[in-house]
């Protein structure tokens, strides 16, 4: 029989998937086939949205905020490393020497996450638009990343790590962490629309003279 922590993690995963599915289906009104004749292809717009449009040179949110952008990348890599570690603790993955990268990735993610949390706390504009959910989500992520580091260092049990992960996954559909799913839906919707209208991919020589 599987350990209790694995059962808890499985239940939280089922809950998160079901809850996110319900939420995504609730927004299905967004997915309406356009009735106007097309000037481009939605699929090409979506492809552009998830490739070229993601490049730092294409997004002012990256090019004008390189430190925050880099921190965001590291944070998300760290979270991925943490979940790989959690999975690996129950079902050993064929990671071989890549396993050695999990702790540094989680560590870098933790530093980046704490940087972004402090930035949120000390930047007046960011503080103004933040809500308790933003801080709670950051702390939960930080706890998982720290737990991963501790687990890899042998000072935290797999059971404790799984419980940390389960708590995070339970909370995932309730607050800002749901962007893990809605990021893909929103981006696909926006760029699909712009692709259909012939805006993207750009036709007129491209980069439009960005500032």
């Amino acid at each position, binding site marked *: 029989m599987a350990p209790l922590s694995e059962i808890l993690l499985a239940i939280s995963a089922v809950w998160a998937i079901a809850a996110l599915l319900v*939420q*995504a289906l*609730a*927004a*299905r*009104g*967004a997915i309406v086939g*356009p*009735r*106007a*004749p097309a*000037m*481009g292809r939605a699929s090409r717009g979506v492809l552009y*949205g998830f490739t070229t*449009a993601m490049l730092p040179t294409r*997004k*002012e*949110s*990256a090019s*004008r*905020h390189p430190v*925050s952008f880099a921190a*965001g990348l590291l944070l998300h890599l760290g979270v991925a490393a943490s979940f790989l570690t959690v999975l690996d603790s129950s079902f050993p993955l064929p990671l071989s020497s890549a396993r050695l990268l999990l702790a540094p990735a989680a560590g870098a993610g933790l530093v980046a996450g704490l940087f972004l949390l402090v930035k949120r706390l000390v*930047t*007046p*504009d*960011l503080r*103004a*638009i*933040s*809500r*308790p*959910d*933003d801080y*709670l989500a950051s702390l939960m992520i930080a706890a998982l990343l720290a737990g991963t580091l501790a687990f890899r260092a042998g000072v935290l049990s797999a059971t404790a790590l799984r419980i940390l992960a389960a708590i995070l996954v339970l909370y995932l559909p*309730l*607050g*800002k962490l*749901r*962007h893990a799913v*809605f*990021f893909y839906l*929103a*981006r696909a*919707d*926006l*760029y699909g*629309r*712009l692709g259909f*209208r*012939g*805006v*993207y991919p*750009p*036709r*007129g020589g491209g980069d*439009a*003279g*960005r*500032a």
Partner: protein
Amino acid sequence: MPDAPDPASRVDLLAALRTLDRVAGGRAALHAKACVRCGLCGQSCHFYLADPVPANLPAAKVEKLASLLRGRRTFLGRRAPWLSRAREFTPEALEELRDAVFGRCTGCGRCSLHCSVGLDVSSVIEAARRVLSAAGLTPSGLRQTIENQIRDGNQMSIPREEFVETAGWLSEELARETGDPDARVRVDEAGSRVLYLVNPREVKFFPLSLQAAAGVFHAAGESWTLSSRVYDVTNYGFFAADDAAATELTRRAVEEAARLGASEIVLSECGHGFRSFRWEGPEWLDGAYPVRVRSVLELLDEYLAGNRFRVDPSRNALPMTLHDPCNLVRWGGIVEPQRRVLARVAERLVEMTPNREQNFCCGGGGGLLAMEEYGERRIASGAIKAAQIRDTGARVVACPCHNCADQLIELARVYALDVEIRSVVEIVYDAIDWSAAPKREPGISASP
């Protein structure tokens, strides 16, 4: 200063709530749920760049609607509103929403292209405006313009007689200028291939733009007409997200095209008119149109590519730049036709930085020009566009949107820009070499 809050008794909370519930199942809710409030969107918003206060962050504007959605539709919002800052649906909350989505956003969508997630912010703004429209909280100037359109058939309430009279004297002018007595502004000519819709601003204040269009159509041998009853390309129902009004205005134009036997509706230079008619209209009418719909820019591009008349670019010798209206370019997909046209009819085109789909809003979009209460913000937010124009060193701004043109004219005055704002069709008209143009027989069309 924004409007004083409407008395609670005048706010139709129930209708607004019903609309909010509908919104919760659509695109806006999807995008609102994806926001992580990273705040990186501010640098891409002309309102925030001009006045960097938290309320001008696109994320803050999204949050105004999202907090109401959470309060009504999410588990956490109902059980622990303090955690997600979910808000109750009150007249005060709606008043704040109104300030955010009418007074601090033109729905230009630039922030969406640069959002770290890819939120369609303007769809959230549109949904919020829909809720406010249902509540009866559309700003009065915008509401009045919609009422004019519905009641009088055009947003400026121009009487039909005045329209016909203007077309008459413009025809005389055109015949004199071209030396061709058949050159005229055609009105109510059934059987014409093209029904041309214009901005009433052209009829009322800038008739030379209408004359230029008539001249270009004449030079191209186009079979075209205006309708004296339905000629307004604008749709302020779109700005207010008043779907009933927007649908009615679209329906009238499509029916008028059928009545006159036109096979194509051509839209004058109007950003939101193009977007609403070309892209949103079929959604409102729940089906594709029985006629083709194009921007006049596409038609001009076709004329010039097909050598339908001869042009001399030296007649437009001053350095020129091109404004990219958000609804026409970023939301409309009309990006290159105007560039190809200007490359043929002007000697020197200097692009703004950034341009095309990356353009900055002029500040007058989203119906803001009709909302006097936000006039100061509108002019302040236009500082970005004014700087863009100044940096090109251009003396002429080609502006393929009459709404943007009004804003740019005001910006030129306020920010002391030494530029002339002109529509693309005016620039084309000026370049026509009439000595090489064939005399046209009445009603003869050179269209394929």
